[in-house]
């Protein structure tokens, strides 16, 4: 059996580990256009900030490829999938044959069309290590940085830059920062905590650039030295689409991570997930999800039928010293607790659907488990769980299951 994986990040590594749980000797080839040993993408903002360095960014131990008997083809771009001959063509016109193929090509930065953007010299996206290196090279202590996008990438980038430059301005069309993970009240709390550090301009966007000046829809203009475009990401579906693969917002997969093409699987940011909290397929470009999809794909590729664990959005981030954790969907019915930072639990009928927690993040995973396992709240002590996540609030059966070891499979 020969497995080929296009990708070398969380989903790809998950697949290698999934395959190796089942098969010890099969061939695995990893093809990645990035030349680096597998590293943690989300660390690039910490790298910018100086809180980590290249020596600590490796996502797995340095003997990973050897230990797992993988052949890494790094710095090699896969250009085409030949479904009939079951092989992947690479940029140097060679090919790699596969029995099972995983497309784990991730996502790329979306760069919108804005008048004059082409004429901006110092412009960067912020997706991978090379982006971070380029950006780092462009920064001076006197730099005025303009970031388009107040989402996860834009805000983490801003945090990474902040100490190294003269000023950071963030522009976003949304009504609030981190709009994909925070609601109005929680976003307001975070905004108030960071307002002295960043200049955040919301509900506006850039209409045009003239040299190093950005003109906004609200009439204002901003002078800058370095521009970072972080308005969103798009899945890298092209190679799969070109060979007849089925795409919606991302690659369409089933619960075994199989695509519509036989022997081709997909995992990670490039494909869709079934979000159990909204009962819909969507792209959940999050590292834990990517790893788990990759791991599921790998086990299936190795012939062990495995279904993807129930999936929901989950985020944990530190931002200028504040810890934020969120999960699931934000329904109308909510229980808010403002005693220790901020906590909002979102409920739908008898089920917990989501949460937003600022500061008091300990044991939040107990809430995540309530969502993931669709626990009927009426059967547990929700009054107690609402105050703080604790196993004590669970029924005897659930708790003893957990503690006796029968549940930790």
């Amino acid at each position: 059996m020969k497995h080929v994986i296009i990708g070398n990040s969380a989903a790809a590594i998950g697949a290698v580990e999934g395959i190796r749980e089942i098969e010890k000797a099969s061939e695995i080839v990893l093809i990645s256009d990035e030349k680096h040993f597998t590293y943690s993408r989300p660390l690039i903002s910490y790298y910018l900030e100086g809180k980590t360095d290249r020596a600590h960014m490796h996502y797995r131990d340095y003997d990973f490829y050897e230990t797992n008997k993988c052949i890494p083809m790094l710095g090699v771009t896969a250009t085409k999938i030949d479904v009939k001959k079951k092989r992947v063509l690479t940029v140097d016109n060679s090919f790699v044959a596969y029995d099972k193929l995983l497309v784990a090509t991730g996502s790329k930065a979306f760069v919108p069309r804005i008048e004059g953007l082409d004429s901006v010299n110092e412009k960067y996206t912020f997706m991978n290590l090379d982006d971070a290196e380029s950006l780092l090279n462009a920064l001076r202590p006197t730099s005025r940085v303009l970031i388009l996008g107040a989402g996860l990438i834009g805000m983490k980038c801003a945090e990474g830059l902040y100490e190294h430059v003269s000023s950071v301005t963030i522009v976003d069309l949304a009504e609030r920062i981190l709009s994909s993970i925070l609601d109005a009240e929680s976003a307001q709390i975070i905004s108030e905590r960071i307002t002295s550090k960043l200049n955040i301009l919301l509900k506006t966007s850039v209409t045009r650039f003239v040299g190093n000046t950005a003109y906004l829809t609200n009439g204002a203009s901003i002078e800058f030295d370095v521009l970072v475009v972080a308005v969103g990401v798009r899945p890298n579906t092209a190679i799969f689409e070109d060979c007849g693969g089925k795409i919606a917002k991302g690659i369409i997969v089933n619960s075994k991570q199989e695509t519509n093409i036989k022997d081709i699987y997909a995992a990670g940011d490039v494909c869709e997930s079934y979000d159990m909290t909204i009962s819909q397929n969507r792209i959940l470009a999050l590292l834990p999800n990517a790893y788990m999809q990759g791991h599921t794909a790998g086990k299936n590729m190795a012939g062990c039928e495995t279904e993807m664990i129930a999936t929901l959005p989950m985020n944990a981030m530190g931002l200028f010293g504040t810890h934020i954790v969120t999960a699931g969907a934000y329904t109308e019915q909510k229980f808010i607790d403002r005693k220790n930072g901020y906590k909002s639990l979102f409920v739908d009928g008898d089920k917990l659907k989501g949460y937003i927690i600022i500061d008091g993040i300990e044991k939040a995973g107990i809430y995540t488990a309530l969502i993931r396992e669709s626990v009927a709240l009426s059967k547990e002590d929700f009054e107690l769980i609402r105050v703080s996540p604790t196993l004590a609030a669970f029924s005897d059966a659930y708790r003893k299951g957990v503690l006796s070891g029968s549940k930790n499979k």
Partner: protein
Amino acid sequence: MKRVYVNEQWCLGCRLCEYYCAFANSNESDIVKALKDKKIHSNIRVETKGNINFAVSCRHCEEPLCVKGCITGALQKKDGLIVVDKDRCIHCYTCIVCCPYGAVSPSADGVIQKCELCAKISGNQPACVKGCINQAIVYEER
């Protein structure tokens, strides 16, 4: 694999396990020096509700969500044991969001801490098990 289990019916809720755990992980040789006037950050935590007491520590899951979710690779499964490479933890707390048991937590300096079954510490039994006065906490294969 041997794991730490708590027999809830014997747990007195005395929290000695928390102290023994914190001491064992303190790098101090004197328990007073290690714990006196300090906020205890133990890897095992006693929970209480009414008459029910029980201690919770890492379950060392077969399919550990904390390891799968760890964004840096700091959390790893090595020979069944879930360990943290503290140099690579960036304090994002994705593991806290992932762990269904609330068994990973931030240490005093922010880096994640969790039970490693005293594997790096000498002795054939985890400190919480050794110290449990009622043998409510056991270390065994199940």
